[in-house]
């Protein structure tokens, strides 16, 4: 399922257990691959611009520009400043949620009970909100930066009357999604279960992070060409980096 040379070579790779939290800088010109190692993973993600940190992933702008209520290839993830933070260049899963939000301590306790560190050591029950607070704090960010997030590998379907359903078994073992970063970003993530996950067991799943050097973004790039909106957001991103926006 992995293609080590697809994007000019692997830079680094590491695995995260379920219920973990992680943050780091993902550079422009690299591809972050998220792999669902065993199926039914959830990766809650927030994205901030490394230089101007209050530029953040914006769920409404991403959805409105692309007339979609979920994410897959060739969608781009837009910031609140009209730029592209990353592009979804490959996706074996097909549907990633961005309206379901984050789990929190109350939800986790209500669903799964409580398991403290004293009792369970590192198998204690974690939640998405607290996990992201932990990561954001390392970069000078805080609770005000908890915005509507992406939940990679999770599916929430909306019926015509607006009711929301968590769709089980959306992601299989080995499914992956490849995000080509178009800006230098702080990526914060939690592998806690989706807040609407119907599994009554606390059973967050492990994932793998792989970062590759990306290939140049060409004029016929499917993400860039997907909609006129994507082309304009990409134009704005080039301007931000002092490059000819028409290149």
């Amino acid at each position, binding site marked *: 399922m992995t293609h080590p040379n697809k994007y000019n070579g692997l830079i680094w790779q590491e695995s995260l257990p379920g219920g973990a939290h992680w943050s780091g800088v993902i550079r422009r010109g690299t591809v972050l691959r998220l792999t669902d190692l065993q199926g039914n993973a959830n990766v809650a993600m927030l994205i901030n611009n490394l230089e101007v940190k209050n530029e953040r992933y914006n769920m*409404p702008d991403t959805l409105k520009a692309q007339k*979609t209520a979920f994410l897959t290839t060739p969608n781009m993830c837009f910031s609140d400043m*009209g730029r592209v933070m990353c592009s979804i260049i490959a996706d074996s899963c097909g549907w990633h949620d961005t*309206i379901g939000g984050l789990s929190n301590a109350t939800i986790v306790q209500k669903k799964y009970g409580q398991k403290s560190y004293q009792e369970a050591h590192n198998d204690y029950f974690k939640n998405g909100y607290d996990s992201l607070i932990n990561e954001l704090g390392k970069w000078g960010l805080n609770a*005000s930066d908890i915005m509507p997030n992406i939940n990679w590998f999770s599916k929430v379907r909306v019926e015509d009357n607006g009711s*929301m359903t968590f769709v089980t078994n959306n992601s299989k073992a080995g499914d992956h999604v490849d995000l080509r970063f178009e800006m230098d970003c702080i990526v914060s993530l939690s592998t806690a279960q989706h807040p609407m996950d119907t599994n009554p067991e606390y059973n967050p799943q492990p994932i793998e992070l792989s970062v590759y050097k990306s290939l140049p973004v060409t004029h016929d790039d499917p993400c860039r060409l997907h909609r006129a909106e994507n082309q*304009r957001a990409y134009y704005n991103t080039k301007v931000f980096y002092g490059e000819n926006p028409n290149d």
Partner: protein
Amino acid sequence: MTKPQFDESKIVYREVVAAGDPWMHEVKAGQKFRIVDLEGNQAVDTLFYNANDHSERYSATDTIREQGNIYLTTGSVLQSNLCNPMLTIIDDTCGRHDTIGGACSAESNTVRYAIEKRHMHSCRDSFLMALGSMKTSSSESGACSCNHDKPITKDDLSSNINFFMNVPVSPDGHLDFDDGISAPGRYVEMQAHMDVLVLVSNCPQLNNPCNGYNPTPVEMIIWE
């Protein structure tokens, strides 16, 4: 919660907000707050903050997840980022309000419409104008009576409610902006569970057919 009778004698505040204007005001716990769509199909972009602690604010995702539905209407409990109830919608003659469509900004207008549209008036401009006029506790007066030295900033602007706006989502995941389902005189009203600071941009969007390319005034009414 039973539907309260609208009592003109108990009105404590009433103001018409012109198209494109910002508006910020406090609604005390227990008070009722009505927004009237005076001419129809106007989007009223609205954010709520705990008036005593601005770090607690309206959360679109917590609200829709807790009620299991993406649309807001009578009975919807508007939840904070700490999952506390901020207000409940107690009456709604429109039927459906959006909270996943967000607000327009100069930058999103360049993406959605054209690079040259950057200079048109937008909701984020209105939000930032209102916040810029906000006084802290060390100042003499302001729209908010709360004791706060830290102003609300762009960092605190999260996904808002678009009252009277129609953003349907289909089971296959398509999202669109449809003709509004509001009409002249339709209103939504809610009751506050905590002292809330209400931040509104009466949307100036001229590029979106949902308001017929004609932003119009709305009326804000607060009563006991």
